[in-house]
């Protein structure tokens, strides 16, 4: 009877309406149903941040979010990042802050939501926010350098 849900959401600005099993996670909706594979399956249990997307502007771990719980909301994934987030992507690129790249989409969305909220985010705020995302390649130094540069370019813009 109620093990399926009619879900209506905006994904990267486009309206999506689907009948889904109630047990569908937001991550599987994005990756399997909508073929938006930029959001990554890392740990699958909320530890690593590789699946971070934005829901109504706030960061959210898609692996431990039921798709049914974002009914009516607006979801942004890395595929929906463009000129508005370019200053973050460019800074990560410049500092070679992405190696295997698995953590990168989550980091972009985490930082985008930090800077939209706090244009003048300082070192402590950046470190606190990035505590949400694990990177197994870079050792974080380059990611932090990129985040600092993104913050500077943002606040001077």
């Amino acid at each position, binding site marked *: *009877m*109620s*093990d399926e*849900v009619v879900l209506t959401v905006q994904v990267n600005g486009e309206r999506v309406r689907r009948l889904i*099993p*109630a*047990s569908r*996670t937001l991550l599987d909706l994005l990756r399997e149903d909508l073929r938006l594979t930029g959001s990554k*399956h890392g740990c*699958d*249990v*909320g*530890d690593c*941040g590789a699946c*971070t997307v934005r829901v109504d502007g*706030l*960061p*959210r*771990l898609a692996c*431990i*979010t*039921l798709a*049914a*719980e974002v*009914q009516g909301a607006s979801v942004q994934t890395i595929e929906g990042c463009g000129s508005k987030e370019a200053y973050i992507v460019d800074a990560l690129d410049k500092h070679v802050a992405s190696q295997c790249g698995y953590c990168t989409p989550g980091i972009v969305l*985490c930082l985008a939501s930090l800077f939209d909220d706090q244009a003048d985010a300082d070192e402590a705020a950046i470190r*606190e*926010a990035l*505590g*949400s*995302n*694990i990177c197994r390649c870079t050792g974080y130094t380059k990611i932090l350098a990129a985040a600092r540069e993104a913050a500077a370019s943002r606040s001077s813009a």
Partner: protein
Amino acid sequence: MLPLAHFEYLAPTEAVEASRLLASPDARLVAGGTDLLVSMKHRLFEPRLLVSARRIAEMQGIVPAAGWLSIGASCTLRDVSRHGIVQQRLPALAAACRTVATPTIQAMATLGGNLMLDTRCMYYNQPAGWRASLGYCLKREGSVCHVAPKGRGCYATQAADTVPALWLLGAEAEFVSVSGTRRIRVSDLYREDGMNWLTVRPDEVLTRIHVPLEDRSVAHRKLRTRQAIDYAQVLVAVAAPAQRGEPWSAVVSSVAPRPILVESETAEGLAELSFRGSQPLSTHLASAPWRKKMVRVEVARAVDALLRSHAGSG
């Protein structure tokens, strides 16, 4: 990938309707889902019905009323920690919200879900395959406790970050069920049993958390291995006496199924009494003797912080 088992899903608009649905066995309330979904992926339980708190208006909003702050159980830890009155009048609560997991999780997780968080154990909070390989434990399907094989009980710990601060701030939790509404002090919410750790029934819905705005000086401290993601090795809150003649108090948590209340005539004595009163067990990250010593250290640090802020303001 850790797929979820199938379940039914309903999103009622009233807490009493949610309570009616939760009366059926195998039903669970989902708030932020940050612990529930992980537990379901690990097959710690497989509910047949999930009842969403998402549309229940009486569980939302933060409103001051007659000397109390009434916080909706569905408010996220991020919203609570950023609220002006919480920051100014209840800084220990704001600090406690900000030590939970990570900022991303704080934007999803609710204050109600934190108070109702399942007790934790390194042998229980593991994937299904891991638990099957070792052999299940008492808390689910097994007949022994891997922590204390000779014991009869479960020692899974109360690990919710906001509990010690809310306890010492004198907070009360409001529950709605088909049998009516009742308010329970946070200090009366927990039991000394890791398998059955709450004093409320599964069909009672936590709707609001009421915190008195009395300007009690409370300090929150959390000791953890990494400064993000990790649960506490030791969690403490300390309250200075509100009036002359009252004791100093500490609530020590993350070391037993129920937080431990310690009282001392003097500020200096509180840390030693807390040390003597706590019996933490070893975890895969820290030994029991070290955790026990750190109870003393963390309580002493909290006392120091309060004494310093008093010296500063007076």
